[in-house]
């Protein structure tokens, strides 16, 4: 179930803005596999401390890369089939897609902005 894309509860509107939409299996299909251009997907889980450390960096990276590529997240604790389909062995794992096809991945990069931006853009750079 996708909680982020649904209509927010009015009491929670003041909560911190999330620059990274969450995807479920259906929206993954429409927004990633049928999507155009460079797309990065973070496979994560809220209970993973490394993903927690990555979060502020990723929000910053999402803002920086907004014009160049789309960034989404998939919660592997809920979307077990997607995690299995993409052979996710741990979190955080970034899988990069170009026009719906996987072109690269990064597992557990250092949580600093430069490293994460490099990890998210490198697979696309080599195809330009």
């Amino acid at each position, binding site marked *: *179930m996708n*909680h*982020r894309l*649904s209509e*927010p*509860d009015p*009491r*929670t509107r*003041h*909560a*911190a803005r999330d620059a990274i939409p969450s995807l479920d299996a259906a929206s993954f299909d429409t927004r990633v596999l049928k999507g155009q251009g460079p797309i990065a997907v973070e496979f994560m*889980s*809220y*209970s*993973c*401390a*490394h*993903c*927690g*450390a990555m*979060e502020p960096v990723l929000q910053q990276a999402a803002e920086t890369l907004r014009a160049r590529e789309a960034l989404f997240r998939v*919660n*592997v*604790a*809920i979307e*077990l089939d997607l*995690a299995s389909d993409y052979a*996710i*062995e*741990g*979190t*955080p*794992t970034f899988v990069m897609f170009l026009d719906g096809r996987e072109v690269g991945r990064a*597992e*557990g*990069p*250092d*949580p600093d902005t430069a490293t994460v931006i490099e990890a998210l853009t490198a697979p696309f750079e080599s195809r330009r």
Partner: protein
Amino acid sequence: MSAALGARLPGRGATPILLYDDECAVCRRMAQWVRWVARDRVGLSTIDVRAIGEDPEALRRLDPSLDIWKVYAKSHLLMPDGTIRIAGEAVAEVLRRSPGMAWCTWLFSVRIFRVRPFQGLLDIGYVILSDVRPIFGCKSCGAPALWARPFVWLAKALRRRDGAKGRPAHRAKFTPLGTSAATRPKPPAP
């Protein structure tokens, strides 16, 4: 540490709600212990112990100020009056409300020159326990604090020496799924 939230919030009953990390073996044990110790004479629980889960919106329905990342980082106790106790303060409040532990809770209120020394010790104890959780096999707890790393390595070495089956080595900033989401039963279809 408590945050005044003003009016009482929907979803909160008269019982405080303790949120714990269900992926962490140490936290699960603690939650079990709280369930056991926080029963009154007729067997009713004085604290509602709940796993944090994976739904940020469900948490915000409990309290709009809750951020799921922060809730996973430290214990949160949601009080019926709308305040939130965090970390060592949450532990003290849990003990205060546990009929089996009431004998020791006056200590945490003792003040000496505006300082609460026993609450301070409890806060330090909380931080130490939180930092050493990887020793007890919590793979989702992240990289151990610098001071705790030698102890974590020692614990791993001892486990290897004792013939415990070691997990394959993973990168330092990567949580293998075997200890978190992948082992969780699939949620029922809506």
